[in-house]
């Protein structure tokens, strides 16, 4: 089952079993946004708090498969305490890593360049992603990409709604 081990890396299962930054924050000052996958019913609810150009706190609730929930947990650990521009950059990099197949499938390919997969792959700086790189195996399972990107889309939406650069 080599394929599956690519998908279910130990670090992913760890974040699934013990999700980080689980819970809620008072709204306001926090901003609340929901991400929902109508096809499979996965959902994440993000509570994001900004402080002087920094994403000072984030909490997550919701339920779904190991990929959607671990991705949300990994994301929360990666973005907490980072400057907004760093967070924006991470979102772009993560989405690029996930868009390799999204582009091929003709789905939403925000952040992917028009001339296709290989150049995106080259452009993805896996090192910058740290632990998040564990999720790269997801691209081999195209129907699960939406699970992995659910919380990231919600975070991008949250920053847009707050109007954070």
């Amino acid at each position: 089952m080599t394929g599956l081990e690519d998908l279910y890396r130990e670090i992913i299962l760890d974040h699934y079993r013990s999700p980080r930054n689980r819970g809620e924050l008072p709204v306001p000052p926090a901003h609340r946004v929901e991400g929902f996958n109508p096809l499979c019913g996965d959902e994440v609810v993000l509570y994001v708090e900004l402080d002087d150009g920094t994403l000072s706190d984030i909490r997550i609730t919701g339920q779904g498969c190991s990929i959607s929930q671990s991705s949300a947990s990994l994301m929360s650990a990666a973005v907490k305490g980072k400057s907004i521009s760093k967070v924006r950059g991470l979102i772009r990099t993560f989405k690029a890593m996930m868009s390799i197949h999204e582009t091929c499938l003709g789905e939403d390919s925000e952040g992917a360049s028009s001339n296709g997969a290989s150049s995106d792959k080259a452009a993805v700086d896996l090192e910058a992603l740290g632990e998040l790189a564990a999720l790269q195996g997801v691209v081999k399972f195209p129907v699960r990409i939406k699970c992995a990107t659910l919380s990231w889309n919600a975070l991008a939406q949250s920053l847009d709604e707050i109007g954070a650069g």
Partner: protein
Amino acid sequence: MSSIACKADFPLLSQQVHGRRIVYLDSASSSQRPQVVLDTMDDYYRTTHANVHRGIYAIAEEADRRYEGARMAVGGFIGAPDPEHEVIFTKNTTEAINLVSSSWGRCNLRAGDAVLLTDMDHHSNIVPWLTLAEERSLELRWLGIDEQYRLDLSELDHQLDGVKLVACTAMSNVLGTIPPFAQIAERAHSAGALVLADAAQLVPHLPTDVGSLGCDFLAFSAHKMLGPTGIGVLWARRALLEEMPPFLGGGGMIRDVRHDGFSANVLPWKFEAGTPPIAEAVGLGAAVGYLESTGMEAVRKHEMNLTSYALDTLSERFGENLRIFGPPDAEERGGVISFAYRDVHPHDMAQVLDQSGVCVRAGHHCTKPLMRHLGVSATARASLYLYNDESDVDALAEAMAKADTLFG
């Protein structure tokens, strides 16, 4: 207990996935087709195709003959007393139910009227009524579910008071539950209500007779009963269909068109606007022929035995780790087995099973109200059909055990 239909009749079942024999356990979502259905459709296109109801030349007449022949075959299959007029071809179950809600519903339901639905129905038999309820200020009522995953009928007569229509599944696509439809229909009729059967899961798996079911409307899809996609059926009592206005407007459904209006064609074409799915109807006719030659009693018996085998095999092997959502007795249910395994999310389970070539569905199965009732967001679902056998169930059990290795 081998399968009653030869797997070799179904070309897709000899495919390999991930280097393994495909174990297809998703027929409740869509079945596979036997060679005879593919051949019949192919032959139709190669030798006969022309538009129906229009041409005065040999192949057009033959196309007409095959199309109308399929209607008669389908009517015979469900015991329709007047198949020539009562069997309407639609796109699928969903469109058949929308036809009823738009045409019959708009004519017959007024503010304050009630429609009785159930907590185990498919979105196809909920959303059209939600839409109409909003438009017409209808009251929607819901039959609940008991601990045995049966419809809770304890308040039925009370709930029927003032109801104009009962729209109810004849077999749940998640629980497998087969409600006592004839009894519900009889009590509904006594209360002055009409009854619609969502038979998308019934017609493919059990002998179906509209007379003994006691329904007024019956909807189902060809693709779940060995036929092609793109075609479904609405059966309704002729007297009702005669009174109902057309659903979609266009060619084929008219008798006359003037600047100031039109008059509708006779049944069944009044409800078949535009060029119909002709090859698909012909393919459905062949699917019906295949099922009839196997015998629906035999199909039901096989699926009951195999369902018992599956329920026993899975509960013995996985014990407390497995939760099955549905009646425990195969007599009361079809071969749809929804389950939760430990804390493994259904999507992850489906992914693990796929690696062994086992195809199951994971998700809400278009039954969000039911998921809410069960207190889950999704289930994994294995569903059986006439081409499945014990080896498929064994493969499922083997593959499920692999989730332990991954999820520890």
